[in-house]
């Protein structure tokens, strides 16, 4: 293993974030605040508690949306950070150095995906802290919460890396996050439980992989879920292995990197 190489890639990617600190950190904080003002306070004040029985128990809507909000940011940030991280050297041509270095594709991935996942973890933590200023939060299963949290960051950073490898224009780079991920997250129950939907839409929602993610994550906070949290974990792991498989294939075929 070329640990030095992994370490410099990781550090330079983290440095890139520091140079754009305001954009990287401030934007999730601001958008979280906005969601709280709009959904938590304005709309949420008209919604009874979610998940309780006969108005008893359950959690307030403001609290309810926290896990979904975190997931929304984690998914989009992981994908955009990781895809940009590998796309940019391809775009500027500086990728030549990585291709000519004594480093395997695997090590390149650890460096880039590791940095992107770290960033997402930082952003998620900031959102959690910001949210705790608005609502009283308690986490029922901290270990499960951490597992979902970290797995999501790693998996979607890996997915972002794949998009960055595949993209050969800035347009393509934006395409999947915009057309696929954002709708899936919004329709995946970030802001509602699926039993609020008509039966047909409940069934359709079950086809949405992001639903499992959000459901499992929310369960780890307040034991409220649309699907079993074990199923959720399996879904996340399955997606992780699919991404690993694609990356392995890219590695084997030298996909789009080496002519």
């Amino acid at each position, binding site marked *: 293993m070329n640990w*030095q190489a992994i370490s410099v*890639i990781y550090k330079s990617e983290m440095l890139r974030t520091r140079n754009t600190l305001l954009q990287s950190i401030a934007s999730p904080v601001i958008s979280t605040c906005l969601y709280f003002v709009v959904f938590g306070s304005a709309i949420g004040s008209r919604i009874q508690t979610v998940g309780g029985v006969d108005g008893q128990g359950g959690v307030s809507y403001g609290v309810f949306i926290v896990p979904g909000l975190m997931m929304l940011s984690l998914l989009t940030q992981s994908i955009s950070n990781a895809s940009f991280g590998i796309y940019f050297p391809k775009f500027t*041509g500086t990728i030549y*150095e990585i*291709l*000519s270095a*004594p*480093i395997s594709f695997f090590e390149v991935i650890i460096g880039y995906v590791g940095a992107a996942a770290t960033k997402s973890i930082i952003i998620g933590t900031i959102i959690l802290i910001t949210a705790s200023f608005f609502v009283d939060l308690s986490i029922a299963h901290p270990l499960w919460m951490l597992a979902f949290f970290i797995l999501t960051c790693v998996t979607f950073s890996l997915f972002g890396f794949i998009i960055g490898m595949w993209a050969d224009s800035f347009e393509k780079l934006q395409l999947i996050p915009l057309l696929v991920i954002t709708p899936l997250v919004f329709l995946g129950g970030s802001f509602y439980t699926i039993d609020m939907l008509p039966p047909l839409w409940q069934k359709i929602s079950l086809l949405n992989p992001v639903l499992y993610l959000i459901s499992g994550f929310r369960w780890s906070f307040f034991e409220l879920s649309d699907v079993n949290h074990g199923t959720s974990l399996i879904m996340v792991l399955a997606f992780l292995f699919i991404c690993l498989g694609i990356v392995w294939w890219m590695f084997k075929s030298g996909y789009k990197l080496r002519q």
Partner: protein
Amino acid sequence: MPPIVAIKDLCKTYASGHQALKNINLDIKRGEIIALLGPNGAGKTTLISTICGIVSPTSGTVTVDGHDTVRHYRKTRSLIGLVPQELTLGAFEKVENTLAFSRGLFGKKPDPAHIEKLLKQLSLWDKKDSALMMLSGGMKRRVLIGKALSHSPKVLFLDEPTAGVDVELRKDMWKLVSDLRESGVTIILTTHYIEEAEEIADRVGVINNGELLLVEDKNALMQKLGSKQLSIELREAISSIPESLNTYELQLSDNGTQLIYSYDVKSERTGITALLQAVNKAGLQLKDLHTSQSSLEEIFVNLVNDRQTPPDPSKETHPMKDAL
């Protein structure tokens, strides 16, 4: 001693179907400076990229210090430094950091003292905290050289190092290259300019159209190719060359105001004095004179023609004979 780089039967066909390298065989000796000469699109960059691992070979093998560049890429790549043809650098990184990054990428522990020494050598020390995009083209070129040297490679590839570089910097660069050679680094550089190859290389390889046409000791090659041209500008245009000048095999320019005479620099007598007298005698008035080295293009034409059409005595024309 075995060659530091051994290229055997190397072919490269790009996905587009273009065959950029055709069966290249070349041994690069330890510690030499070899210049690869060739026109645009000859395959110089492709050859270098294949050795460095940026392009995968279609067939054939390359070994560096006895190790195969595909199977033992970690070993071979850690021996190599590459200065690419294009000024490909990040935008916001700082000069010093980017050198440290390259060093780490090649698996070496951080060594700020070495980076400092390099930056000073390259007259970049006062720019160490500048963002890369704030540098001039020549400075960027030097940063790329610094990056390539950051891990102390044994073999250095310079792909057109003097493109867009002023005279001063060019001199510095050649000084650096010969210092590196002194310290035992093998250097492979590409260029379009024969003068450049002449100035610093020990050997010269000529590439055209994906083929390595020849590899020769520089001095031997220069002798072979050392023909020069004298252009004689006339005050008044003429429509044909006077018969009395036939023995000099002159060429007349299209507008009739220039006579061109080719001669061998290395030969004892160039025949220039006699020619000028003869021109005078023929009643032509001179306006100006200048000489030029045979251009690379002509050299290629000669080389390619030599390769493609074996000498055929019946077809060879002898203007001198015709004149007699």
